């Protein structure tokens, strides 16, 4: 049996010259080579480059000096800002998004309101970026001159946080609505006939059942805010507050001064944080699918 492990895939993505004998079942896996090759070059290779460059200095040898800058006070403050912005907007987004999901889930599954909110969520969660910053600028920014003007529009974290919440809520709806839909009517009715009140249903049944999905969603939203770049780039171009901005700055200056691996080190830090968060998300998600299918 030909067994491919993930590490092998990265190491030998395209084995040219070997004629894939697709009809032989031993070699059937070679049918996935184009896919594996593509993913190897454009996903695994760049990730590998980041990790490699982060721990190699300009001399070419191992050098953890750059990595240790992750603990320097200036770099740390970017991570702290990032974590603060992500934590606030993920919790707010999750709570508000859960309320909205509940309102959507209790409606007609084929209804127009559900479709509008789902399509709108899809757009605003994935698509926003630069546009959202413009939209808020014109609504409450200092130059709006039209509607309400918020003096704190350019303050961190509340100004940018508001815009983040604007795309976090739709993402919450997208990831949390399936869990809401998974709450079976029988559970509510069983609780009711056994003598439970509405409050007791949420306290003992609905709440505990949705808790893993909710926590998982908070983690996903956290990762989402942590890695967002477009919105904050369009919001403010003078000051770097968060890690993605700093990566952007480091990357732009690298074009001039080659082989300064500041961007790689910051990216490594991001990978580490996001990996932890997403592992938590995956574990919670597994429990959710078992309960709420």
């Amino acid at each position, binding site marked *: 049996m030909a067994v491919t492990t993930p590490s092998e895939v990265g190491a030998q993505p395209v084995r040219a010259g070997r004629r894939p004998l697709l009809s032989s079942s031993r070699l059937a896996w070679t049918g996935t080579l184009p896919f594996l090759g593509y993913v190897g070059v454009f996903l695994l290779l760049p990730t590998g480059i980041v990790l490699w460059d982060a721990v190699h200095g300009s001399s070419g040898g191992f050098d953890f000096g750059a990595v240790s800058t992750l603990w320097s006070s200036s770099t740390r403050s970017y991570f702290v800002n990032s974590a603060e912005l992500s934590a606030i907007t993920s919790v707010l987004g999750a709570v508000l998004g859960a309320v909205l999901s509940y309102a959507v889930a209790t409606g007609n599954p084929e209804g127009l309101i559900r479709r509008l909110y789902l399509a709108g969520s*899809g757009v605003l969660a994935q698509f926003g970026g630069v546009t959202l910053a413009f939209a808020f600028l014109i609504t409450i920014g200092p130059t709006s001159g039209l509607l309400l003007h918020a003096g704190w529009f350019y303050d961190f974290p509340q100004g940018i946080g508001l815009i983040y919440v604007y795309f976090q809520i739709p993402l919450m709806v997208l990831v949390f609505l399936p869990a809401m839909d998974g709450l079976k009517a029988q559970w509510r009715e069983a609780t009711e006939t056994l003598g439970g009140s509405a409050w007791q249903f949420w306290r003992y049944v609905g709440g505990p059942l949705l808790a893993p999905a909710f926590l998982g969603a908070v983690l996903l939203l956290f990762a989402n805010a942590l890695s967002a770049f477009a919105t904050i780039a369009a919001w403010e171009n003078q000051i770097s507050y968060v890690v993605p901005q700093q990566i952007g700055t480091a990357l732009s200056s690298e074009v001039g001064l080659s082989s300064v691996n500041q961007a790689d080190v910051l990216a490594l830090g991001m990978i580490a944080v996001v990996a932890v968060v997403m592992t938590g998300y995956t574990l919670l998600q597994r429990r959710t699918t078992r309960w709420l299918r």
Partner: protein
Amino acid sequence: MTGLHARRRRRVNAFRYVVFTVFGLFFLLPLLAMIRFSLEGSTGGSWSLSSWGQIASYAGPPPLLSGVEITLELAVITCLVVLALLVPTVIWVRLRVRWMTRLVEALCLLPLTIPAIVLVVGLAPIYRVIRQQFSLSALQLFWVYAVLALPYAYRALAAGLEGVDVKTLSEAARSLGAGWFTVIWRVIVPNMRQGVLNAMLLTGALVLGEFTIAYLLLYTNLQVTLFYVSRGTPNAGVLFSTSSAALLFAFVLLLILSYVGRARGRQSERSKVSK
């Protein structure tokens, strides 16, 4: 219509309408402000469609239309690449190498864990090679956009394949003398059209809104163009007409998706919470 249930239903409905109104306002307000500004301009008073007309003619810097063109072309190319890459792979894995399902799924979902802002750091040297060896065109972005689209396209395709009895279909076709190419593209794909369509719509919407990678790899797509327009001429009306147009376009794409992509078996047994 008396009794406790009617009362409770009224209470839930009242709650729902309050929620829909409040959230609706929150979501619509910035968008409406944007549309209003695109029609009225910062001076106020006079309404005109001129900034919508400018979408095609805005000379820059940078010129807007080229950004629109590049992005639309990228959307089409990326869709095709994603389909060519993923459709045969997903079907093939289902047909012949089921033990690879977990691996392929994990790889497809990996871009969710490796954010674009991280990916772009590692892509910089790769794109240096692409620029030197192949082409300077921003169309080269499709290579990485296809990767960004993998999680969404994979899920759409996997869902589309769920209801298809791939094994029986392929055995039937093979016994009639079809080759694997025919089996995949002419027998199975027509049965998962919905999944394919969903994958294309999601991929298209993603490309329309992408900024991070294009900007940091120094390419100019629609979002990057808008970014520079706003840096050069803050409050240019065309900024808001174009942004609104792109948002509306993506919204319509996804609304279409919600109508064509609903024939899932699971939906029929969905139960409602009504407490």
